[in-house]
């Protein structure tokens, strides 16, 4: 009898535990173009001022909804929908391919990214960002979060991530993960791009976390990816163009 009870207990609690750390986080990504342009060193101060003056008050043009599916061992981050729609709903366009999949148990990642005019499939081992944990806390959507900072040395970005104490899973949006809690806000380069969690749902994600069957792209690894980005950053600066025209931030 005891064995049966123990079995029942086990049976009931395991899914409950699973449910505790499975769910979907919805993020809103806002890109501030005038802030990005203000940091491009090939522009003169006069040109930066002109951009800020003309567009600075009205540069929240691109708000995109993103979704992060997670289980204790895997996460998948992509667009909420494969199309974006204008505010009034009358015009739509296709989103660039962007899917970040991580398997924490196997320490593997699969990323499908449309950038530099092509779609790439990056399959390699997980590379955790080098985090520094800071003494700052704030509330995001009802969760107390602590600040951690990292740096993208290739894109030369300062990254601030706010991770939740009460969501003990090392997941996060975009290229960022590996903190003691889920990242609920990501601030890149002092507000150039802000990704904030707008909704957190704890529920079994089921098949939603699985990769799509069709994932076409040129296969590359981490090193090749880094090299391509580095070259593109260098060329863009020489050509006096914003590098973010052709790759995700």
């Amino acid at each position, binding site marked *: 009898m005891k064995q049966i009870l123990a079995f029942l207990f086990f049976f009931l609690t395991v899914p409950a535990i699973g449910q505790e750390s499975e769910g979907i986080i919805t993020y809103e990504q806002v890109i501030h173009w005038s802030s990005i342009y203000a940091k491009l060193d090939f522009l003169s101060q006069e040109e930066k001022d002109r951009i800020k003056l003309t567009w*600075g008050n009205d540069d929240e043009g691109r708000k995109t909804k993103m979704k992060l599916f997670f289980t204790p061992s895997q996460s998948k981050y992509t667009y909420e929908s494969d199309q974006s729609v204008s505010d009034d709903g009358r*015009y*739509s366009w296709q989103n660039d391919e962007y899917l970040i999949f991580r398997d924490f148990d196997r320490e593997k990642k699969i990323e499908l990214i449309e950038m530099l*005019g092509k779609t790439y499939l990056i399959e390699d081992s997980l590379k955790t960002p080098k985090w520094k944990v800071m003494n*700052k806390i704030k509330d995001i959507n009802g969760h107390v979060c*602590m600040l951690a900072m990292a740096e993208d040395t290739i894109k030369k970005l300062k990254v601030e991530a706010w991770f939740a104490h009460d969501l003990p899973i090392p997941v996060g949006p975009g290229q960022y993960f590996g903190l003691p809690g889920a990242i609920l806000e990501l601030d890149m380069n002092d507000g150039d791009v802000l990704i904030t969690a707008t909704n957190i749902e704890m529920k079994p994600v089921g098949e939603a976390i699985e990769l799509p069957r069709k994932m076409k792209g040129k296969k590359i690894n981490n090193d090749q990816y880094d090299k391509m980005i580095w070259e593109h950053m260098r060329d863009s600066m020489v050509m006096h163009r914003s590098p973010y025209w052709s790759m995700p931030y």
Partner: protein
Amino acid sequence: MKKLLLPLLLSVVAVAVQAQNSGRITIKGTVVDTAGVALPGATVMLLAPKDSALVNYNRSDEEGQLEFKNIKRGSYILKISYVGYIPEDIPIEPKENEVVDVGSVKLKILNQDLFEVVIKTARAPLSIRGDTVEYNASSFKVPPGSTVEDLLRRLPGMQVEQDGTVRAQGQEVQRVTVDGKRFFGGDVKMATKNLPAEAINKVQVYDSKSEQARLTGVDDGKKEKNLNLELKESHKKGGFGKATVGAGTKDRVEAKVNYNRFNDKQQFAVVGLGNNTNQTGLSWDDYQDFRGSQSYNWGDDGDFGFSNGGGIIFYSGNDDAESLTISAGGRPEQGFTKNWVGGVNYNYDNKKTLFSTNYYFNQTDKMQDAFSSRESILAASSFRREDANSRNNLNANHRGGVRLEQKIDSLNTLVIISNARFGSGNSRYVSDQEFYRSNASGDLTQLATESDLDNTSLFNSFSMGNTALFRHKFKTKGRNFSASVGYNINNSDGESNQRSTNVFYNENEPDSTLRINQTNETNSLRTQLKASLLYIQPFAKHYFWETFYNFSLRQDEVNREVFDVNIDNNTFIPNNQLSRYYTNNFLYNRLGTSFRYSNKGLNVSLGAAALQFDLQGDFKNSKLSSTLTRIDRQFSFITPNGNVRYDLKNNRNLNLSYSMSVNEPNIRDLQPIVDNSNPLYITEGNPNLIPESSHNVNAGYQYFNSASFTQFFGNIYYNYRVNQVVYNQQVDENLVTRSRPVNITGGSNTGLYLNYGFPLKKTKATLNLNGSLNANKNLIYVNDILNRTNSNGYRFATNLSLTPSDKFTFYLNGNWSVTNTKYSVNTSQNQQIYNNSYGAEMNVKFPAEIYFSSRFNLNTYVNDRFGFNRAQPILNMSLYKIMLKSKKGEVRLSAYDVFNQNQGIRQFASQNFVTTEQVSTLARYFMLSFTYNMRGVTGSVRRRGYF
């Protein structure tokens, strides 16, 4: 069994490894609150002491116990954090032992005030460094105009006493710094009472050594409370501005100044320029600096629905003199001009209200001498007109504008726009025209008519445009309603004198002379009331139904009084044939609907509109005359409209569109009155004209890869014109042309444009190729014979950009174009026009901030049949040095048109004529100029592009 064995085996191995390697340690302890109650699930992190880098992390277990096993021996910071408690940092310094036990770590409860107010309510980040607290000022709302003191009162843990003393956590604040710098000797009250709260980004409270310790270097252990105010980025900025003055040979001078002050809410700008170097207005950069956030406002005309319906447009074209708003980006003028511009602009922007007002003055005084030659083709012959003329125009405009955009709430927006312009000017046109017909051997050398003209005019005008726009979004996403009303007025008074002497030479008859000396006064008043409605309803997923309605009532009242002047006794005799008084009402209604589908980048819209014109006009020879003629015409049309835009993967786009546009006949063209004020070109109206319409088809494909810097654009278009209004010509033996408008169907325009750009060597060399084809079919009756003019144009252009370094760039371009024109009535007049241009540009950066740039252009114009062959080499060079502290100054020596060849040359063929024109224009001059730029001058050898 296997499943059990594996972990067992692993743990044995792990233990073995641990035992062998004394370089590994274990850290353990218990997390409890101040009462000693265990805190399970606390976040425990191991950080590197030097940079807080995260080494490892974990959670405390059910009993609040924490443990890190098998950690590399070294110093760490153990950081423990738990919701509602102050995070605790514990330094780990392992000695010989392999287990570091930190014992029970007591977490203090986070001050409830701080937690509730800062974290929960203000959603502001809170910094905790021992006793240091940082507040995000923008999270605490204070009324506009508040001081820092008002802001401090709202911060938890801060008190401001009656006398202005500031206390933080109960302790008096001894010093205040702004961005780390002392403010007015560190007087606390001076800073907190005078600085505006809205200028503050962050408030930081921290402890520091006492003044005594600071001076002596001996730490007396006393701590002082310090307050640091971090200013917002926007409030750090003062103004910026730029001024240029220059003087050159041929009495050329130029001056330009602009100054801006702005913060995140307000923008203020002034601009002024004066020159005699043919720069008439603002460049796009100057315009953006001047208008700031109000540089571009789309949809302000309030005309909803298909864009090309005709009838609703009040002001024609973008002609600067006609426009109510400031225009920018104009090309340098031809001839010789003196230009003045002055303006002030103020913008106020916040999330709810956008307000803008500006005043702008511009004046251009232009002198221009030109020579033109025009050959008109008749059925069996042709004739040529040579015209040597000189013009002098003075135009001045005062413009003022106000725009208010108010977001009433998240669903409703109101926009009110009012722009006005006062214009005045005068002009003089002196011309010597000679008409030649063919002689016995077929050359156009036989003088037929000679005409000397001397016309003067002056005018005053006032115009104003007012628009109110209301937009409402319904709660249902995609359901929208918009309404607009507008009232426009244009009033002008003008006076002009026309004098000419025309001599007709005939072989068999004696020569005859016709003199004209007329003066006329024209007053015209045009008003327009218009309104538009738009309703959008989503009716299924991805489907929208749009309905729009446009209304316009335009009223004109024109009184033109013409007098013949008798020079002998200086009397004015009313000329009843040319005088005219007319009023007309033009009513326009359009109702349209369309269906739109939008999904995954495929955007399709199909629709149609019904439109109606109602033209009513009364005209008579003078205001007092009783003979009244009436025009009363109604026209109805159905215009279909469709377009497809497909956004494909990898920066590719496809678009396809069809539209039908309809334009009503011009009221002057409908009046059956003969106008012989130019005795060589007599016009007459036609009351039977009907509106012209055209069918327009356009298809395009774009590909742009900004990573490989490759691009391709292709475009194809076709226009077919129905009932096009053309001016038929009757040319008599004296070469006097009588023109009358009629409708004709069958004219068309077809074309193709292709562009391909790619790097030859990435970032160093880029080649761009583009070409276009155009086939234009024009119909016109000349002496009752239908003439079909087919003009086929072919153009090819290439650009090569060489950008090997930041010190040297070189650009080459070539542009070849040929136009084949064929006249059906007289094939012997068929001809080819060649317009080619070649260019080279070189920019070099020398040491010591010295730059050199030069640009050479060779333009050639050839028409063999017309005996026209011109080559025009133009070389511009400039040498400049950036100087002064922070590179704020630039001194520049420029040479314009080194070969002294500049003139305006134009040649083109259309309908039944071909024309060439040469305009004398400001040529070679040298100029020395100095620029002072508060933001610093940036020299670059690269062409400016989009970024």
